[in-house]
């Protein structure tokens, strides 16, 4: 008895509820942007500057106590959050303290870190500081810039690649799906106020990479079928291609999600935000490959005469043999 995520032969009309699915995506994107503008992102020190101190102690974390201990230092905005994780032992009580970048300080101020540590040791004698990280405002500004460039460069590179390998309509569809994924991910980070830092940007790029992977597989089949069925309506050929690759799409997403789930639960709190972003992105990316990318291509249309396939596109790898 084999496990089948989808029946052997599927004949789903992916465009039947196109208004609902595509419209839903558009609404979700608008909502995401709205949430983003309204609630903002919980930027980490990579982008805001400042200091984070991770504390650990055998005594249960008392956020109020910590806050009172730090109050006399007048550090401005200090956030203290307790961290829970299934991998922690009973003696592991962990908190994250974030201190904003201090006014007028170009660089990191070690005196403040030392003062904070001393104040905490005074109230919790066995406290230790497994990690202390400081980023000056000068660097954080540049990191934001680099992050934006990285995301845009990735989108541009994919736009060009798909254009070269397929047709420009495909690359527009693919990039539309990617923008959809990125915006929805930013939206969920804003909604849940998960810390948004450099690792999140890396996750965004990974999502882009993963989602395009899915999209390209469907496009690849679509191109093949467009050559095979010259006169069938584009929508039918798209449905056929999506149905033929559906089993693969869900299998790959399934294995990836299983692996990520293990990491999400067992991988520790340090990378949980990073893993969550990718986990979410795989779900959104799979959806957008099926319901967004093709719809965009269908809307702008694509050439139907593939009788003289470009020597440049499509066939150049087919003579590679193992």
């Amino acid at each position, binding site marked *: 008895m*084999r*496990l*089948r995520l989808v029946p*052997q032969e599927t004949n789903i009309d992916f465009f039947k509820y196109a208004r609902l699915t595509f419209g839903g995506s558009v609404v979700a994107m608008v909502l995401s942007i709205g949430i983003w503008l309204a609630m903002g992102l919980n930027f980490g020190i990579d982008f805001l500057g400042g200091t984070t101190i991770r504390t650990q102690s055998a005594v249960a974390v008392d956020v109020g106590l910590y806050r009172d201990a730090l109050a006399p230092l007048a550090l401005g905005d200090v956030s203290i959050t307790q961290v829970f994780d299934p*991998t922690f032992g009973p003696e592991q009580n962990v908190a994250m303290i974030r201190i904003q970048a201090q006014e007028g300080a170009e*660089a*990191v101020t070690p005196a403040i870190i030392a003062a904070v540590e001393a104040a905490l040791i005074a109230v919790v004698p066995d406290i230790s500081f*497994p*990690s202390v*990280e400081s*980023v000056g405002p000068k*660097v954080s500004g540049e990191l934001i810039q*680099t992050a934006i*460039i*990285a995301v845009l*460069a*990735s989108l541009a*590179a*994919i736009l060009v690649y798909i254009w070269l*390998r397929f047709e420009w309509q495909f690359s527009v569809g693919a990039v539309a799906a990617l923008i959809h994924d990125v915006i929805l991910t930013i939206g969920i980070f804003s909604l849940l106020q998960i810390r948004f830092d*450099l690792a999140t940007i*890396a996750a965004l*790029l*990974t999502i*882009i*990479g993963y989602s*395009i*992977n899915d999209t*390209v*597989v469907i*496009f*690849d*089949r679509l191109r093949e079928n467009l050559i095979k069925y010259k006169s069938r309506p584009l929508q039918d050929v798209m449905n056929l291609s999506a149905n033929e690759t559906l*089993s*693969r799409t869900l*299998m*790959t997403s399934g*294995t*990836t*999600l*299983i*692996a*990520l*789930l*293990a*990491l999400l*639960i*067992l*991988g*520790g709190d*340090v*990378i949980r935000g*990073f893993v969550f972003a*990718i986990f979410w992105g795989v779900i959104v990316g799979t959806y957008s490959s099926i319901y967004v990318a093709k719809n965009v291509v269908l809307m702008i249309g694509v050439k139907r005469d593939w009788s003289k396939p470009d020597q440049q596109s*499509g*066939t150049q*790898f*087919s003579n*590679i043999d*193992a």
Partner: protein
Amino acid sequence: MLQIPLWNRLMIVTVVLAGLAFAMPNLFYERVERHNDAVAEIEQTGAVTDALAAERALWPDMLPATLVNLGLDLRGGAHLLAEVQLADVYEARMDGLWPEVRDVLRDARDQVGTIRRQDAPVGELHVRISQPEGIAAAVAAVRTLATPVVSLTGVGAPTLEVRGENDLVIVTLSEAERQATDDRTMQQSVEIVRRRVDEAGTREPTIQRQGADRILIQVPGIGSAQELKDLIGTTARLTFHPVVGRTSDGTASVDARQILLPAMDEEGVFYILEQSPVVTGDDLVDSQPAFDQQSGQPAVTFRFNPAGARDFGNYTAANVGAPFAIVLDEEVISAPVIRQAITGGSGQITGNFTVEESTELAVLLRAGALPAEMVFLEERTIGPELGADSIAAGEIAALVAFAAVLVFMVLSYGLFGAFAAIALLLNVGLIFGVLSVIGATLTLPGIAGIVLTIGMAVDANVLVFERIREEWRTAKGPARAIELGYSRALSAIIDANLTTFIIAVILFALGSGPVRGFSITLGIGIITSVFTAIYVTRLLIVTWFDRRRPKTIEV
């Protein structure tokens, strides 16, 4: 039909075995690391002590001993991003230039009148002359001080830019000279930082120049970023002081304007020195290890710039027979006796040096003081326990992920799924093998990259298997279906993985630290997963097919 040439099979097996061989030492990480450390130490010192030999014996010499470097977030340690204040050097250069400018303008006194240095913005030297009509002559006179810049790009351009404004002579470094100076300053700073970190003997520090004015310093195993900053020492200065006396009392009281400093080599020996130095390391232009011509003993030669040479010459001429102290980092390196006046701007230090010591001292003198102040823009300390926790969590997650994917694949594709799972296991081995061989650094997001690869690596297999299923329905016979499945899925595999690979390259180019670590494992994972999917599983399937010759296949 389903043929793989023998040489092709051999190549596949060789690559897999080599990858696994290089990955294998990582299973015995601590053992191999101690072995490697011992080998490195034996190589460096040349002496094989029993303890070292025992450490070395922990791992057989004939086996590969390649290890994946662990990033700071996994091993614990400190990370600093320092910005070198390049403008400091311009200022020092202008201060150093002033006496020369003064001298040439004095020689032209009848044309320019009296001169006076004015306050000026950083990096500029302003001199006011009392006869504005002589400004052209003044500018021309100062210009004679400019020499051609020596650099790779700007040979021939003058070092100084001199212009006149009414009665003001304004001197700045030329653009070419600034660039050359910046470059020298950065090289010197990196060299000094490296020297200091190396002296602490920590394992595999990373000291890199980043951009125009930054240095990235990562030192695994160090307790905190503060400790690292102490080590690098932002205040290091070389100075030459007159010696007042020598004592063994570390608490001896000294007069005002005198200081008590310990000797670097001799324990319990202190020197009482005049507080104000005769010359400082800023005035040194060169220092080399040498041998004393008379006694043949190791010595160190040094050379001052003109300003330093004049000060040093005057002082030594007046104090022949007296000792003077060479002080670095508040410690007296040596206190040689002045044998004769040193007027040429160069001299020689002799003492109880070995050849190594004289070489080291020369390096200290050359690169003793940081040429410019460093400001720390970013500092991170990660404790070793946190890193160990992360590794443990990552290992468990990876094992669970692998087991789950294996079950899922076998349930879905039966025997073929098992082949894919074997390929997946080999794939993870290959990733570690490649990481070890290229000496890449594994970070926490890197582990996430490997787990992600476990999930995604089966993708290429899934593509092939799904295609075989499809072809099986229409094709004639199982062999044909398998063959068509592989060849027709190839285009999708290549396209899908190339796009992801592009992302990995962009991440690598723009990321740093942990993010870069992630991009490396992601990129390597893509290459190895494509390799295992289209070569290794194919080899497994074809071998199985050749033996069994099944009439039907169930994918």
